[in-house]
């Protein structure tokens, strides 16, 4: 905690211990008042912007929501322009499935990559790897989507088939096909999309985790080594507890990215409108991909319906992040780094 913050933060206002008798607010100069004003102003602007996003989506999506009513949450088809029903009952589960698959792959890989860079890699390799992860983050999602569609998918579906054949007892891997599982039913699936999306999540997670791990207090680290700890011991008892906020924060950023990933999913999936447990076989969907695919062919009412879907996606990501950020704020890494 910085000294600047303590003077004004509300939780310390009632603190009447002798150290806080002198209130620095009195000595604040004109420049400082402008500085604080500008900084607060940009903060408030962010609030307004966030409110505007929700507000405009609600405003423009209201027409569609009024027509659909509760059916918006319970209908699984999407035919607003044909006068039919439309809802997110199937698209939403697909979106979550893709994100979960992505995180399942990305978080362990990102965690070990971050640890590898900060703790294990030789000095020269560390610099190269850091640059490569930054580069991995810089590669556009569109490129991953193209690579996934043309290169990875034809190779990945053999793995999908193997999982369906040998691990079919897991409900997510069970593929119901009366003609036997053939390779043709595995492309454009939730699993393939999830794997591609994980590539986009990894660098984001790694960058945050690495940043935090590299700031672990050297005193404690050396202390653990001096006590005879192995490298893994240092990681387990110093680095990981210290970096917990970074791990959660990084995964959270990753989840946000995975839920809203549009282009890669749009390129991979073939749209499906019936929710299912199985992630391996053809047909998946996501709210973001739905918007991207339907936008150009929609009428005013259809766009209103898409706005409503966008609002739903917006609210979901909002809730996920509100929950996650309360966890993170309890373990703000680096707050205790003092010299």
């Amino acid at each position, binding site marked *: 905690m910085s000294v600047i913050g303590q003077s*004004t933060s509300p939780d310390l206002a009632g603190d009447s211990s002798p150290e806080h008798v002198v209130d620095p607010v009195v000595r604040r100069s004109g420049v400082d008042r402008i500085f604080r004003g500008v900084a607060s102003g*940009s903060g408030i602007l962010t609030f307004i912007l966030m409110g505007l996003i929700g507000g405009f989506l609600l405003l423009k999506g209201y027409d569609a929501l009024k027509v659909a009513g509760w059916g918006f949450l319970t209908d699984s088809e999407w035919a607003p322009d044909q006068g039919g029903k439309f809802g997110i009952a199937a698209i939403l589960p697909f979106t979550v499935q893709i994100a979960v698959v992505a995180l399942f792959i990305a978080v362990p890989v990102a*965690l070990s990559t971050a640890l590898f860079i900060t703790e294990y890699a030789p000095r020269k390799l560390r610099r190269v790897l850091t640059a490569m992860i930054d580069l991995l983050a*810089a590669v*556009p999602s569109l490129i991953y989507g193209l690579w996934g569609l043309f290169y990875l998918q034809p190779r990945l579906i053999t793995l999908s088939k193997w999982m369906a054949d040998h691990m079919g007892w897991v409900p997510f891997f069970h593929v119901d096909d009366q003609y036997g599982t053939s390779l043709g039913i595995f492309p454009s699936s939730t699993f393939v999309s999830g794997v591609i999306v994980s590539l986009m999540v990894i660098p984001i997670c790694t960058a945050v985790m690495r940043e935090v791990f590299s700031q672990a207090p*050297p005193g404690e680290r050396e202390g653990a080594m001096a006590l005879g700890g192995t490298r893994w011991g240092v990681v387990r008892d110093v680095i990981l507890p210290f970096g917990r906020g970074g791990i959660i924060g990084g995964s959270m950023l990753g989840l946000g990215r995975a839920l809203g990933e549009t282009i890669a999913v749009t390129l991979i999936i073939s749209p499906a409108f019936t929710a299912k447990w199985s992630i391996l076989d053809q047909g998946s969907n996501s709210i973001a991909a739905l918007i991207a695919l339907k936008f150009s062919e929609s009428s005013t009412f259809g766009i209103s319906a898409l706005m409503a879907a966008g609002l739903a996606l917006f609210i979901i990501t909002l809730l996920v992040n509100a929950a996650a950020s309360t966890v993170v704020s309890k373990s703000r890494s680096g707050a205790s780094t003092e010299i």
Partner: protein
Amino acid sequence: MTSALNTTPNTNGEIKISTEERIKIRDIEIVDVIVMVGSAVSALALSYFFFQILLPVSGALGFLVCWYIFFNIISTVAVWELRGAVKAKDHLARIFIWTGGMAAVIPLILVLAYVIGKGYHSLRPQFFTQDQKFVGALSESTEGGGAHAIVGTLEQVGIASLISVPLGITTAVYLNEVKGRLTKPLRMIIDAMSAVPSIVAGLFIYAAWILALGNQQTGLAGSLALAVLFLPTVTRTSEVVLRLVPGGLREASLALGGTEWRTTSRVVLPTAKSGLVTAVILGVARVIGETAPLILTVGGAFVMNANPLSGKQDALPYFVFRLIRFPQEAQVQRAWTGALVLVILVLVLFVIARAIGGRGPDNISRLKKRRLKRKGLA
């Protein structure tokens, strides 16, 4: 920070311990090598036995996975026998973390190699100078270019950065330096905003800027959508960086009579400079290849439109996204060329950004050193 652990005995050889032989911290004994090689060979044999003979499956990947699992088990057991449980756990963790580190890099190499391999055939200078004005659906893939898309992307990302970088860093300063009643809710809002899906940002600009305010689809609309995405990324990462600036530095500055503005501008921000540049890179990285919001906002065009304020504009990612779905081979080839240019653009930006500020705070550039020498400071 990490130097203490990595100091190898030979780098500070001038320190001599006279009485006893030095203890080497990182010493690879011959036994360790034998254990590793032995485990690798026996894992190979075992996986050959299980995979090729017992199981009716085949495939290089499956074999590799099989070998990996056996290698882990065998070598861990061997280390356990030789050195005990603590060392064995350390060994296993080491293998997993090395694997994870490699697992993140391999896709990058594959992706870059694939895009370069697909795109370089039809990459000609005119890709940077011509648009698609005289290109028909059946033209050769080497005809025409993506100049209109490149210009569009540069303008859109430039305008978005002009809006978001100052605003984002100022907000981060508010969160970490100024603080106030809004800090906690604002932090939550920024966290939430960082997860605003790119397509939602596009929808928002479409609803607010185009539908409600009656503007057309322009490059500016695209920039606004990109700015919405850019802002939280910059703010979040900048805030993480600012938080890691030691509180002692701030206290020292304030104790010397520095104002809050001086403390922030002269102590906190310079200390965090390299981190802030990384924050901006991450932000640019997220927006430069963003396609989804542009689908809704820029409109797309096949001819040059350098004015972001009026008329439909194209963007490189959108150009690629549209052309890759064409049935004609030449159009798909053009999309791959566009993808390659996008990757090159990202690489160039990346190298520039690293050259400017990818160093630690204690690292003084050659130029600055010379300047300091002139002043007689160093």
